[in-house]
């Protein structure tokens, strides 16, 4: 649309506050964090003495950070697998145009409206070694005549599977409970957008329902799978509230995450320069996933 000079001025002037706010609070602050990460700042008083990459080097030498990275990888793999697999499964089931679809959809999606702090409180109870599932299992066993107290450690367990801590499983379950519905909604929206004629045509050709999904529908859903993986992947890389409230870092860091390490280093131990370094590694991990995605989806649009 043609714009007069006056209109152009109004456009620029009125969009400026938001652009400046994001410019300063996102980009300016990231630059500031980079400066802090290259300093020697320990203690309450800011100290910007240049220290080079010292904080990053010591970070990658620290055992705790290594554990955090493994925890985060293990968590991400299982969390993504459950959410994408479960979400697709539920979406296909709900796509069969059944009665009461609304009720099922509503229930599968409601965890998204609930604060991670609330999920943390409930799932902490469910997987608490003292109450919750252990008690349920003990009671069930005694009903069938076996008198034995079930004593799984759940999120306090220090058992591991190679470098992967078993204690993370309750947290993975809690997080997946929150996000399966999200992936389901994404797939369901896409499934509803597929023209019915496509399925009809395959059916006329004599393809079974299963085959139609495998050969016709699933390939069409590939972009949704990619979006889901990227959105959930970046959520899992920055996960904080749920884990922090549910278990904290756990015994021997079994449930520690980079976000918890960052918080404790910065605001409990006052090692600001090291905290900034952790936060920037987190940012880098997220950026690697998000930047290609953003440029891709915007290029597609124009």
């Amino acid at each position, binding site marked *: *649309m043609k*714009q007069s000079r006056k*209109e152009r001025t109004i456009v*620029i002037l*009125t*969009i400026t506050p938001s652009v400046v706010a*994001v410019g300063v*609070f*996102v980009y300016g*602050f*990231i630059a500031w*964090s980079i400066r802090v990460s290259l300093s020697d700042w320990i203690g309450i008083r800011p100290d910007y003495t240049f220290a080079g990459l010292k904080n990053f080097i010591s970070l990658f030498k620290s055992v705790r950070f290594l554990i955090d990275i493994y925890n985060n990888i293990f968590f991400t793999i299982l969390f993504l697998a459950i959410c994408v697999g479960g979400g697709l499964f539920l979406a296909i*089931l709900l796509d*069969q145009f*059944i009665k009461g679809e609304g009720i*099922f959809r509503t*229930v599968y*999606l*409601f*965890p*998204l*409206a*609930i*604060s*991670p*702090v*609330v999920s943390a*409180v*409930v799932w*902490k*109870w*469910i997987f608490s070694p003292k*109450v*919750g599932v252990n*008690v*349920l299992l003990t009671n069930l066993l005694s009903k069938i005549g076996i008198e034995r107290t079930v004593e799984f450690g759940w999120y306090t367990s220090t058992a591991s599977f190679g470098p992967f801590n078993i204690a993370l499983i309750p947290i993975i379950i809690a997080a997946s*409970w929150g996000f399966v519905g999200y992936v389901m*909604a*994404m797939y369901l929206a896409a499934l509803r957008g597929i023209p019915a004629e496509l399925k009809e045509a395959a059916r006329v050709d004599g393809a079974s329902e299963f085959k139609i999904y495998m050969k016709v529908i699933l390939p069409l859903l590939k972009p949704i799978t990619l*979006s*889901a993986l990227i*959105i959930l992947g*970046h959520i899992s*890389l*920055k996960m*904080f*509230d749920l884990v*922090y*409230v549910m278990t904290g870092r756990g015994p021997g860091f079994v449930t520690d995450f980079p*976000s918890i390490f*960052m*918080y404790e280093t910065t*605001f409990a131990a006052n090692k600001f320069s090291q905290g900034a370094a952790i936060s*920037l590694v*987190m*940012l880098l991990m*997220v950026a690697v996933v*998000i930047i290609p995605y*953003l440029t891709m989806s915007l290029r597609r*649009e124009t």
Partner: protein
Amino acid sequence: MKKKIILYFVLIIFLIIFLVPVYVLMVTSLKGFEEVSLASMWNLPKGLNFQSFISAFDKLKGNFLNSLYLTIPATVISALLGSWNGYILSKWKFRGSDIIFTLILFGMFIPYQSILIPLVLVLRSIGLYGSIPGLIVTHVIYGIPIVTLIFRNYYAGVQDEIVEASKIDGSNIFGTYFHIMLRIAIPAFVVAIVWQFTSIWNEYLFAYVLTHNPRVQPITVALANLAGSEYVEWNVQMAGALIITIPPLLIYIFLGRYFIKGLLAGSVKG
């Protein structure tokens, strides 16, 4: 027919799994203090007992109000800001406006840890650290990307001719916004408001790092503190968790459709 039965069976199994936490919340919070024992942990309560709700409400009522004082203004300001930004970035594009939009959008994906230290320093230096207005400013600014996205996607579906026609009728850029765009954008407003209200109400990281005085802390922080305390019984924690959940759950029940739209907008494509 047999296929339908299996289908329903599977769907109902999942329904039950999804509702386990709700069962736990309800059952535990409705039990009296003396009724909470290991053996009856999973059983239904013997009667309705609101003791733990009274006790939780007493502990959390101030924080509940804090959350309202925070969430309502932050949501309204963000929605208004988003509606203007979206209007400009879709109907008054200029050279570089798409790049600016992309750069703004990146702000909603960053781990907020990476801006947290400067944020604390700046809020401290302007006297807003540890206050609700400080949290409002924070949520409004970091909410700009998502609200701009919601409105830009919405206006993108509105034909450019409407803007042209309104120009020919003699409306200027503001006139078109106030007389036409604001009116047709009501669905987008509902999406933005529902989304921002829910996310700000449920948010924890900013609330936890930016407020230390229990008297200004939002309810998520207060609940996490309850849950971390050795001296607070499970039933009171669960009752507190239910109290926090009421506002977002009401929104979800009555405006669920808009909530899902906001959710899907978050995956960038509108």
